[in-house]
């Protein structure tokens, strides 16, 4: 997946309208971030990458870049 497409999917999942996301963005500092949005992100990743990330794995996530590393950088172009 192209990184831009992934950022778009994330914005859609979190319903972010007025903030631009990039790999440096800290997910947990976003206003839209909460425990339920984590479940949405996990489902979005499962759907797009066929990869199951647990809630525990998510604890270590900070930036969008770190989430991409968890998914596996080989999945991005």
């Amino acid at each position, binding site marked *: 997946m192209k990184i831009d497409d992934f950022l778009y999917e994330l914005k859609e999942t979190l319903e972010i309208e007025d903030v631009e996301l990039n790999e440096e963005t800290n997910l947990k500092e976003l206003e839209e971030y909460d*425990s339920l949005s984590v479940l*949405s992100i996990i489902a979005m990743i499962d759907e797009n990458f066929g990869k199951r990330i*647990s*809630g*525990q794995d998510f604890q270590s996530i900070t930036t969008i870049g770190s989430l991409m590393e968890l998914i596996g950088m080989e999945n991005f172009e």
Partner: protein
Amino acid sequence: MNNQFSLENKNIIITGASSGIGRQCAISCSQIGANIILVDINKEGMDKTLSLMQTANHVCFHKDITKHDTIETLIKIATSKLGKINGFVHSAGIEKTLPLKMMKPEIYRELFDVNVISGYEIAKIISNKKYSNSGASFVFIASIMGILGQSGKVGYCSSKSALIGGMKAMALELANKNIRVNCISPAIVETEMTKKLFENIPIDSKKEIIKMHPLGFGKPEDVANACVYLLSDASKWITGSNLIVDGGYSAR
């Protein structure tokens, strides 16, 4: 005195017998004298359950209960071996925690298919006089989530709520055959299913959920004990009820 709490020589069919609450129901019922017909899609788990049960004339069926047209054959085989059915426990169930916006029609369908429809289809077949004895008891394992809501559980809550609703209609409909129909609604019980659930949610949420159970999380036997009661003749005047077994969760 004749022990009304006994399940001596009763034939009881249990779905979801390969793990968790279903497994414990099979074990507990066997310990007080019942013959169990175990049905589950997971053979390995079912064999494990069987090894933990008190020996009697148990029968195992490795079946997908959502393949509805195969169920009657199974019931026929079971009743030809053991005799008519005295009890049915629908414990097979799946859980999904997913925000509304990520839900899809096929996810609702899967939840309803396993949690509700497959249980009702089995009840339909065994309620036939050919297959069940007067005084039979059906128990559907619902959930406290069928009464109370929780975010991320629109699919699961609606399926368990449906199970409770249909149970009442079924209780009225089958009363003239002297078949009793009830639900048990547990809060969180420590099983493989809930373990998996907790792997998918943040640790903070887990702590919050534990706090919501005044007596802590339940053990499978806490639900199985209630199930034994509803299957036994001791509960012969109880039908159409939803027995809440939740460690105080819903008392708040």
